[in-house]
C-alpha cells in the first residue's frame, strides 16, 4: 500500500481544511469513516491517496436527534449497528433499520457508518479487479456490458453498468431524506434522490454529487414518516454476507385500505437508488391486492433493459415488490 498522511481532525472545520481547496474530483485525498470500503480499495491500489482524513476523531457527528420541524437528524458517523439496534428507530423508521441490518455482516456493521455506506464505491467485478482498466476507473470501456454482467444494472445503465451497492440509500430515498453536505462555503442540503447520479448524467467515475472538498455530515428524515408503513426487502446470493441482487424500499401512507401516498425505490438494479415515480403514482388510491402487486411490478420494471446475463433481475424485483406490498398490507 502506498504511504499516506493520516489527518486526525478535532473539528469538522479542521476536517474540511484538510480536504482539497477545490471541489474538483481528485485521487489525492480521501475521507475515512468506518473504513470498510476505503481500506479495501487502498489495499487493492484502486485508490492511492496521499492524505486520508479520519472523521472518527471528530466528536458530535454520530447519534440522532429530533429536528425543530419534527423530523429526525442522524449524524453521518453513526454506525450501522447502532441504527440496527435502536429500539426507537425500530418502531418509528423500520425501513431504515431493516436496510441497515441488511448490510454485510455484524462485524462490518459494527465498523461501517451511515455516511460511509452512502459514499461507498461499486462492487462490480471489473471495477474491483486491479488489472482491468474499466470506465469507472477512468478507462475507456465498461467491460461488464459485453462481459460477465450477472450482477450489473438493468435500469439506468450506460455508459457504465455498475449497480449502486448501498442498502441504506434506497431506504433513505423512499423516506424523502435530505443529506447535509459541509464544504468550505458552509452547509448545503441535498435531497437523497438528487445526491446520487447516473453515469450518463454525472461524472462516470463517481456515483454522487459530493465535491472533493465536502463531507456528508448528516441525514435528515422528514416529519411524519412514523405514520407510514415501510419495509426494506433484499435478495442476495448468500444470506450470510452479500450485496443485493435486487432490493426494494417501499413506504406507504395508508388511508384505511387505500394507499394515499407511496415511495418505491429499488436497490441492486441500477447505478443509483432507482426511484419509481410513475409506480408511486399508480399506487395512489389503490388497495393492496393481486392486481396492484402485478401492476406495480410491471410498471416499476417497464424501462428495464437487461444485459445478457441479468434478465433474472426483472422477475426477481417484481417478486420483491409483491412481497413488500404484501408485507405492508398485513
Amino acid at each position, binding site marked *: *500500500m502506498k504511504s499516506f498522511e493520516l489527518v486526525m481532525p478535532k473539528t469538522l472545520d479542521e476536517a474540511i481544511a484538510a480536504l482539497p481547496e477545490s471541489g474538483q474530483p481528485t485521487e489525492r485525498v480521501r475521507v475515512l469513516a468506518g473504513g470498510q470500503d476505503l481500506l479495501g480499495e487502498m489495499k487493492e*491500489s484502486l485508490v492511492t491517496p496521499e492524505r486520508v482524513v479520519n472523521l472518527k476523531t471528530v466528536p458530535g457527528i454520530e447519534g440522532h436527534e429530533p429536528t425543530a420541524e419534527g423530523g429526525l437528524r442522524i449524524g453521518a458517523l453513526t454506525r450501522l449497528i447502532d441504527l440496527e439496534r435502536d429500539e426507537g428507530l425500530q418502531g418509528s423508521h423500520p425501513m431504515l433499520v431493516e436496510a441497515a441490518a441488511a448490510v454485510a*455482516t455484524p462485524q462490518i456493521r459494527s465498523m461501517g457508518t451511515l455516511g460511509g455506506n452512502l459514499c461507498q464505491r461499486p*462492487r462490480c*467485478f*471489473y471495477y*474491483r*479487479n486491479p*488489472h*482491468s482498466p474499466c470506465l469507472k476507473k477512468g478507462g475507456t470501456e465498461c*467491460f461488464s456490458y*459485453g*462481459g*460477465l454482467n*450477472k450482477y450489473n444494472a438493468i435500469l439506468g445503465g450506460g455508459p457504465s453498468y455498475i449497480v449502486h451497492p448501498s442498502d441504506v440509500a434506497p431506504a433513505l430515498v423512499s423516506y424523502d431524506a435530505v443529506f447535509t453536505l459541509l464544504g468550505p462555503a458552509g452547509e448545503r442540503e441535498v435531497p437523497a434522490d438528487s445526491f446520487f447520479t447516473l453515469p450518463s448524467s454525472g461524472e462516470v467515475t463517481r456515483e454522487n454529487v459530493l465535491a472533493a472538498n465536502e463531507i456528508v455530515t448528516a441525514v435528515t428524515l422528514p416529519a411524519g414518516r412514523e405514520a407510514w408503513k415501510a419495509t426494506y426487502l433484499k*435478495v442476495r*446470493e*448468500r*444470506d*450470510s*454476507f*452479500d450485496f443485493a*441482487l435486487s432490493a426494494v424500499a417501499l413506504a406507504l401512507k395508508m388511508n384505511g385500505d387505500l394507499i394515499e401516498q407511496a415511495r418505491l425505490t429499488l436497490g441492486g438494479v441500477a447505478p443509483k437508488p432507482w426511484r419509481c415515480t410513475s409506480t408511486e403514482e399508480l399506487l395512489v388510491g389503490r388497495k393492496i391486492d393481486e392486481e396492484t402487486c402485478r401492476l406495480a411490478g410491471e410498471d416499476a420494471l417497464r424501462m428495464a433493459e437487461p444485459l445478457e*446475463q*441479468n*434478465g*433474472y*433481475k426483472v*422477475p*426477481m424485483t417484481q*417478486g*420483491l415488490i*409483491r*412481497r413488500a406490498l404484501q408485507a405492508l398490507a398485513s
Partner: protein
Amino acid sequence: MAVQDSSPTTWGPREDMRLLNADVPRVDGPLKVSGRARYTHDIRLPGMLWGKILCCPYPVAKPTLDFDRAQAVPGVRVVLPIEDGLRDGWTRRLGTPIAAVAADTPEAADDALAALNARYEEGDWAVNYDQAVAPDAPKVHEEGNIRHLQVDGDEAAAQGELDGCDAVVEAIYTLPVQFHACLETHGVVVDYRGEDEATIYASTQGTFTIAADAAQILGLPQNKVTVLVEHMGGGFGAKFGLDVPGRIACLLAKEARAPVHLMLSRADEFHTAGNRSGSTQYMKAGANADGKLKGLVARIWKFGGVNRGANPGQPYIYDVPTSYAEAMSILTHTDGSRAMRAPGHPQASFAIESVVDELAASLGLDPLEFRKKNLASPVYHRQLDRAAKEIGWAAHPNKLGPPAELPDRAVGIGFGVATWGAGGRPTCEVDVRIDQDGSVTSSVGTQDLGTGTRTYVASIVAEELGLPVSAVEPRIGDSRLGASVASGGSVTTPSLAPAVKDAAHKAREALFAELAELLGSNPRNLRAKDGVVFDVEESDKRMNWKEACACLAPAGIEARGTFQRGLAGNGVHGAQAAKVEVDTVTGELRVLKMVCVQDIGLPLNRLATRSQMNGGVIQALSYGLFEERVIDPWLGLGLNNGFEEYRIAGTKDIPEIVSIIDDEDRRDQVLGVGEPVVIPGQSAIANALFNACGVRIRDLPLTRDKIINGLTAL
C-alpha cells in the same frame, strides 16, 4: 526395556470401550478456540524476512519486470525472477509465479512487488471449453487441448438398450471449478541461516512430503532438514509437498541466509494453489416402468486446467446393466486441478443423482424407492431409509414432485448416496513411552488436518492403559518422529490408528510383564482400568498407575507400533437427504435441514466423526449453492479472487444438520470418512429444489438467478 510382544488382532469389544466409540472433545480444542494454537502463519523468528510472490494475472503473457527498481526499495533483501513456469519467457497458465522478494517487513515486500512495475504482453489463451476446442485454439499441450480419452463399455449396446426403455432422460450436467478455500493459505516458514541445518514450518497434509525437495534446494542432506506441522489450517487435498511457496521460500532463504516467512496471499491462493476440476457430463439414461435402470451413455469432459481433472466415471454407484462412458480432459491455460476431498466423486454424484431423479420423475415413481431399486447393497437401503426417516419423507406430501399450483413458499426433499475406499496402508511407526513417574507419551510424525488425529493418537493409548485422555501426551507434526502417511484419500486413520493401537498394546503388555513378576500374577490376568492395574482373579493384587510405573526401570517402557492390517477396514457407503424451501416469488432457496448417514466401522471418536460429517455436509452445501471460479474469458482475469466474490457458506446459510453414524456397521476395523461425507450433499439439494418447485437446475451452483429464471419458465 525393549518390547517384543505380539500385536493386537482386535480393537476389543465395543461395550468395554470408554474412550473409543465415545464422544471425546479434541485435545487441541481449547488451544484453537482461544487462538493460542500456533499455525505456520503465526511463526515469528528472530531475523525473519517476509517473502512474497508476484503472480501473472493473465493466462498467457510475457512479463517484463524492473528488478533493479524493486531491489532499491528500502528493507528489501532479495529479489528473484521465478522462471520455471515460463516457456520462452511466456507464462502457460493464469497465476504463474514470475518473481519473488524477501524483505524486512511485509509492507516493504509489497512495495517491492509494486516496484517491479510488471508489464505484460498478452498472448492467446484458452480458459474455457469454447476457447479450448476452437479449431484454431492456442495449444495448452503440444499434442492438443483434448487429452486422456478413456472409454468404458459398448456404446452401441448401451444405445440399443436405451431404445427399448419406457423412459429416457438425455441431459447435460455441469459443475464449475471450485476452490479448496483453506482458511490458512499455502505456505511455509523456512528457518535457514546459511549453516548446516534447516527447520521448515509447513502448512501441509504430509509432514514427510517436504524435506527431500527442501534439502535439495538448500543444498543440505535430508537428515539436516526438520519439518514441523504443529497445527494446519485446512488442506482438502491441495497441500502436499514443498509446493510453489515452499520452493520459492527455500530459494529466498538460501539467497538471504536468513529465515523466510512465505504464505500465499488470498488472491494468489485462488490461482496458484489448485482447485477441484470442473466437469460437463452428457448423460442419456433409460429405465423401465418398473423402476429398473437399463442403459446409460455418458460423455464426461473434465476441466482441470493444465492438469487432467478427476471423475471416477459413470454410472458411478448405480447398477446399470448396460452402460457406456467415455471421458476426456479439456486442457485450459488455468491453474492445474489437485486432489480435492473425494476427487471427482461430487462431480460424478451430481450427474448420476440428477439423471436418476429425472427418470423417477418422468416415470412417476418415488425417487427414494427408485434409488433403492437400483442400488444392490443393503447398506444403501438401510442408510437411505434412515435418512428418509430423519428428514421426514413419510409425512412429505409431494413425493412425486410439486403440486400444479405452486405455493409462495415450496418445500422439497432430495436424496443422494456416496462411496469411498478409505483403506489403510503400512507406513506408520508410532512410539508409546511410559516413564517412571507415570507419564505417557504417544509419538508419531503425522499431521492433524483438523480432523482429530492428535486426539486419537492420545485416546487409543489412554483406552489401552485405562487412563484419561489427558494422561497421555500426544506428540505429532514433527519429521523427527515416527513415519506417517500423508493425509489424502481418507487413509490417515485406517493407516495410523492400527499402529497407535499396536504400540499401546505392546506397551501395556510390557508393563504387565514387569508388574506380573512383582505381584506374582499371571500377566494374562492383569487389567488396566480407571487408573488402576489389578489382577482379575486376586483382588488384593492392585496398584494405582503411579505406583505401578514407579516399579519400572529408569528407562521406562518404549514400544513401537506398526500397521496392523486386520484393524483397518476398506470401503464405505453413505446416504444424505436435504430439505429445502424455495420462495417461488423471489427465487430464494434456503436449505432447512440436511441428514448425513455414514458407516465408518469402529468410530474412534464419535464427536470428531460427527464433526467431520457436519463439515462435509457444509462444504457440499457451499459447493451446491455458491462456489464457482469466475474468469473473464476475454480479459483472461480471475474475477473472484477473494472471499467476498468467491462465496463460501456462512452461518446464516447453514441449516440444521443431523449427522448419524451408522452403527449397524459392526466391523471391528477403523476407516476414514473425510471424503464420502462431502460427495452427495449438493446432489441432494438440487433434487430437493426440483421436488419443491419443479425447477431442475443442471448446472451448479444453484444460484437465485437460475432459480427465478426456472420458475419463470415453468
